């Protein structure tokens, strides 16, 4: 800097406060303005209550808002609000009750199901619900799913579908080539929710992005991917099932689902009042949120709990001693206490406790570290220098492939290391996961399988099924699974399912780790939230305090 100028500059000090003051003034008014605006939006939670709009933050974008096509949980529970199903299922008792069909029955070998629709049901485009429309629904599901690209869950419920016979405008019969024990249960879900005839004629992609026309208590307004899904009340709704809490139109006038993937942001939004309800409350936050007075809604997912599923082509895992050690050597209670839902229980069978047909295998799965170590030593696996067991020069190591719940896999890794088992982690994405299943290139899978009923076991283990996950060769188990799917007598079916669970656990075909809970939270003023039998929910009775 030019020293000559320094002298000149020092004389100007007092004069030059003006620009600084200007800056300060500008900054001050900016802050004041912001605070004013913030005040307007800060109470958005309260404002929304007066309008009857529920703002519900969800964790994942549904990617497809047609309830018949996707399997993503968020897509299912969002889609549940706009369509009704032929029947409903009581989540407590498991009984099937009428809904759109006021009467239904099946023949003895579960290959033919008759339905009589109730009168006066209309879609939101004012078209009538008739047998032809239902037939169009079922036919289009089978058509869409033929190449495996979509509606795979719905197709599983319609396994063996041979056609729908229309008797008259309100009566029809659904026929199957082979006994389908899961059909009625499936018919109560949103995957077989009924859409309008016009919707069935649209392309699957259009239905996914533009929405569907249903008979449900809400009607789609807009879907902006990764951002928001909104729906308005259906005026004139009068055909809820007997399991609902009131009759007539839904209590809420509008529902807005906001996609908020960051957990901390979603939970924080509940606390700041930005959201009335949030989905997928992280287990770790539950005690704190519950203590602060928010309402918590929890239900165990039916189906197979989050588990380790071995590929028995892998020589290490084919070793019975290794699998026996895994059966009793994992401290599930510790994992549950550390990373799971605080009020929930550790899994105790191949099926989760919320599944119809569940029977406890707790004895076979009781944690016994000593027994695990004994099993390994008896099997010839001796501790090596690095703390990992060896047998005939081969290390006891395998890789687990998973694509979510990273922390949990790490915790299992720590526990197994203590036993001398080296479990490597291959953490990938959904594509990588299913790719590994498709070409059977995994050692051990880590995932859960959510299904409404015990047919989850078939999906995972039946080697004849197209999408099975487990790789094993057990003809007895295979015949058990095939038989239970076609047994109509509930008691006989239950006996087969019990035996299947016992076999799977005792032979170490599955190592359950944690029961998956649907965990949601809301402001304390929100009432009327109800889970359905598939652990998704109805917003029909919900009111904002």
């Amino acid at each position: 800097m030019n020293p000559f100028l320094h002298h000149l500059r020092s004389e100007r000090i007092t004069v030059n406060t003006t620009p600084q003051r200007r800056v300060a003034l500008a900054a001050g008014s900016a802050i004041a303005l912001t605070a004013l605006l913030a005040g307007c939006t800060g109470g958005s939670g309260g404002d929304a209550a007066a309008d009857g709009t529920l703002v519900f933050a969800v964790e994942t974008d549904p990617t497809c808002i047609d309830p018949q096509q996707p399997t993503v949980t968020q897509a299912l529970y969002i889609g549940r609000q706009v369509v009704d199903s032929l029947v409903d299922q009581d989540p407590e008792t498991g009984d099937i009750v009428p809904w759109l069909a006021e009467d239904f029955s099946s023949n003895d070998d579960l290959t033919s199901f008759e339905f009589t629709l109730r009168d006066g049901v209309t879609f939101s485009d004012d078209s009538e619900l008739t047998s032809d429309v239902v037939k169009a629904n079922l036919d289009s599901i089978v058509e869409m799913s033929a190449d495996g690209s979509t509606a795979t869950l719905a197709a599983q419920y319609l396994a063996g579908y041979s056609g729908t016979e229309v008797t008259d405008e309100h009566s029809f019969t659904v026929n199957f080539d082979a006994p389908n024990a899961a059909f009625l249960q499936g018919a109560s879900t949103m995957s077989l929710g009924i859409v309008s005839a016009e919707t069935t004629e649209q392309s699957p992609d259009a239905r996914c992005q533009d929405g569907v026309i249903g008979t449900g208590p809400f009607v789609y307004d807009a879907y902006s991917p990764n951002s928001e899904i909104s729906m308005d009340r259906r005026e004139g709704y009068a055909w809820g099932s007997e399991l609902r809490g009131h009759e007539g139109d839904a209590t809420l006038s509008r529902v807005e689902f906001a996609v908020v993937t960051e957990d901390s942001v979603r939970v924080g939004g509940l606390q700041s009042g930005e959201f009335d309800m949030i989905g997928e409350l992280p287990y770790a936050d539950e005690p704190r949120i519950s203590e602060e007075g928010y309402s918590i809604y929890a239900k165990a997912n039916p189906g197979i709990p989050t588990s380790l599923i071995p590929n028995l082509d892998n020589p290490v895992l084919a070793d019975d001693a290794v699998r026996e050690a895994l059966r009793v050597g994992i401290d599930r209670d510790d994992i549950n206490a550390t990373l799971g839902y605080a009020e929930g229980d550790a899994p105790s069978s191949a099926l989760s406790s919320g599944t119809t047909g569940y029977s406890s295998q707790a004895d076979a799965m009781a944690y016994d570290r000593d027994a695990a170590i004994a099993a390994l030593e008896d099997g010839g696996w001796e501790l090596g220098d690095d703390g990992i067991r060896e047998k005939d020069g081969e290390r006891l190591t395998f890789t687990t492939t998973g694509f979510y719940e990273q922390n949990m896999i790490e915790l299992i890794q720590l526990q197994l290391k203590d036993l001398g088992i080296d479990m490597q982690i291959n953490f990938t994405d959904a594509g990588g996961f299913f790719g590994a299943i498709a070409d059977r290139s995994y050692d051990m899978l880590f995932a859960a399988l959510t299904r409404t009923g015990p047919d989850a076991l078939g999906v995972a283990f039946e080697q004849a099924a197209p999408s099975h996950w487990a790789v094993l060769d057990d003809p007895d188990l295979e015949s058990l699974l095939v038989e239970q799917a076609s047994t109509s007598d509930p008691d006989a079916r239950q006996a087969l399912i019990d035996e299947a669970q016992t076999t799977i656990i005792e032979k170490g075909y599955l190592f359950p780790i944690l029961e998956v809970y649907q965990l949601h939270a809301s402001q304390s003023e929100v009432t009327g939230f109800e889970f359905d039998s598939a652990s998704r929910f109805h917003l029909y009775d919900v009111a904002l305090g």
Partner: protein
Amino acid sequence: MIRRLLRPTTLLSLLIVLIAAVMALAPGLLAPGDPLAGVTGDRLLAPGLAHPFGTDALGRDVYTRTVHGAFLSLAAATAAVLVGGIAGGAIGLVCGALRGRVGTTVDFVVMRFVDVLIAVPGILLALIVVATLGFGPWSIALGVGLGAAGSFARVMRAQVLRVRGEEYVEAAATLGVRPLTVLGRHILPNAMRPVLAMAALELGTAILSVSTISFLGFGVQPPSPEWGALVSDGRDYIATAWWLTVLPGAVIVCVVLAVTRLARVIGVER
């Protein structure tokens, strides 16, 4: 030079960089524990005497994990700068040296492809490379390095062109010194200085890029404690356990600032 070095901020930066180096090369000295071991009963403890950075959701000591994660972050960043510097520098050198000798087309075409490397945001390029080569610190290094190579190429080329015009180079050529020798003995050493200064500064940026990619989930396999992965792990607990994000984040900031400051000091001196 010594006076510059003795300024307090520079000394502090030097200290931080030395500590970072020790963390990377001999983590056991600073954190004797096992970064992978955790006592689940001690989960989510706030920073205290026993655990200076607190513990995470599985009861693992965050300080130990941070120290052991230094190698992954710093090695990947250093590798990235090396990749970018060598690849980019080589391209720049060739283009600058050949321009005019064999016409300008080669230079034009190659520099346009270099423009692509600069036009595509570094993070996106790195993401694609990582997705292609599989997740892991070395693919991150390659991805980040490729992103930086473009700038290195430009700077090197500019410097080579500048030095080519200098008198001593003309003199050498007139004296009949072979072109390759001119390149190696005169052009390269003089052109390299600004490039080296740039490399030192790029190291700071590379550390940030590496942690960002880890944060986005394209990084190391769990349970590796790379710094970006640590911050990412902690973001679900930001309301209850701020130390999981803030402390590893602060370490990143300190190391990047220290590296950048040192690079500036050294760069100016040259």
